[in-house]
């Protein structure tokens, strides 16, 4: 009798919690969650494309020029493929972000700016190209 009651309580509790878990997982497919995920993905893909337009293969890069938020955002966008310079002052390209109002050619109002050391030694400042996401950013933060 005790065993049957214990089994019933345990399995019933598991059943109730399983139903709640199923509902939580279903919530991940809600249109608002999906819209937010796609916007987040598009934002970082846009920054990635703009950065690639500024960094030639083999060139070393410094990220953010000391701005913590820029460093984290750029790491998320391009950290997996850039050749980070050590020390940062020796970088061929210094990437930063410039945020402003929504405009054509921006990623939710943000553009990647490259301070590029040309082979001649001259330094030029260029803005990334090749991708855009309309709207005003930043994108909604995903769960921490």
């Amino acid at each position: 009798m005790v065993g049957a009651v214990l089994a019933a309580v345990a399995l019933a509790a598991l059943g109730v919690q399983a139903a709640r878990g199923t509902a939580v997982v279903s919530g991940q497919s809600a249109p608002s969650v999906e819209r937010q995920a796609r916007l987040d993905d598009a934002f970082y893909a846009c920054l990635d494309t703009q950065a690639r337009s500024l960094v030639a293969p083999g060139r070393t890069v410094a990220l953010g020029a000391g701005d913590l938020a820029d460093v984290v955002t750029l790491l998320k966008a391009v950290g997996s493929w850039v050749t980070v310079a050590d020390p940062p002052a020796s970088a061929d390209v210094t990437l930063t972000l410039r945020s402003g109002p929504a405009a054509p050619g921006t990623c939710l109002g943000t553009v990647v700016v490259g301070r590029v050391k040309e082979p001649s030694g001259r330094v030029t400042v260029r803005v990334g190209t090749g991708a855009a996401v309309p709207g005003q950013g930043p994108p909604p933060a995903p769960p921490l």
Partner: protein
Amino acid sequence: MSTPLAAACALAVLAAAGLVPVAAAVGRHWVAVPLAPLGGAVVAAGAATATVALGGPFLAWFAGLAVVAAACALWWRRSGHRPGRTRPDGRTAAARWRVTGAVGAVAVAAACALSLRGLSTPTVGFDARALWIMRAGWFLHDHHQLLVDLRLRQLVLTQSAYPPLVSAATAVAWGVTGVHTARLGVVVVAVLNACALAAAALAVVECGRRGAARLRPGRPPWVPAVAGLLAAVLVVLVAAGVTTPFLTNGYADPLWSLAAVGALSWGLQVPTGSPTGAATALLVLVAGLSKDEGVVIAAALVVLVAVRSVAALPTGDRRRRARLPLGVAAGELAVIGAWPVLMRIVGARGVASSFSSPSGFASRARATVDGMAPYLHVLVLAVPLAVVGGLLLAGTRRRAGLGHDGWAWAALAAGLVAVGGALVTGTGAIGPWILSTVHRVTEFPVLAAWWIVAAWGVVGAAAAVERTGRRGAVPVPVPPDAAGHAPTVPPPTDGRAPGDVVGARP
């Protein structure tokens, strides 16, 4: 190449890398299916460690270590070591054993697939993009650049020194497919999460069918086996709810938590016999190579499993036979500890520990308890259930061969102490720290508590039918364990041999 195709290729490569060692250690058992890709991920983590330590291309290390692991496994099998056979004798018993195993595996697989439907939304978590998936690209850089990535202070990312398994598995996916996207990394990690979840759930199936076979070997009752099967499906759905959204957004927390729960279940709850030792060892490695919290919990699990194994050995022969479980434990600790030691040697960012002032411990402890409490409400159910079960059904639990509940609670407590200790003694502002992490860092204790509830559900079902099984029972042999863990069911105190059933005929 599309993401689903690339993910399928990557997982096939990971499974191929893990298949031979897992098959050699686990044998023909359903749990070998989810363990094979996890074994490949462990090989990838080993390749990442070797790449950082010695240089050389990451993928070459991965292929080389996979070949070495397969060769060692084949040599081990050829030298006469084989996973023990746990299937009970007798036509009826064997048939029921096979049916419950197959149905359990299919049901758990279906529940896991259902739990991954969050992947239909292309979410990439904050830490996944900033660390877990991003770091995969570092392992594909040359050695000099990899060390720069890990060391350079200006990159500010202090979590760079976290254990490598998730990033290494993603690096394998990127390397073999040429598709370098965060989405591919997220999908591969999500499937690895599902593999760990399936392995942990199959332990519940195993509790049910092994318990049934031990209670009435000739004709195992259906009830405990069906209860185990039902509980296994339910814990999968429960775990998916507990770990969402991190189950499908690239975080490492579900992987180490689910692997640790699997190790707890296989190593401390499931009746002994193949493949408990092998499954436990592999899942411990997955937990310990995935995240810092996982390192601590995995170490605690290694110690608990070793102590339980040694304690169960015959007193007269304990010193000689203890070498094997202690050797396995030492090996596991060495593998888990290699990465943190290496990070200190190379001077990676974030390896230095700092502690808050002891005067603030009390307020931080209060904030930690307040922050964690809403996530631990399962304890309100699990504690009384365990107390009632321990007082009234301990005999049935012992006769069914399940490990003493205290072992699982010790592992759960170790998890709470490790995470709580880090929060109390750490230097981060406690409020935001708890707010941003408590959901993830409590996954292991919450899941462990649900697995404890599931085990008591199986024991309760066994108790409900045990009375009719006391007549005509015969002893069940306890086979040796594949990974060297000795049988760990405490010997009965009434003169019976381990594995005997009450009422057994001589």
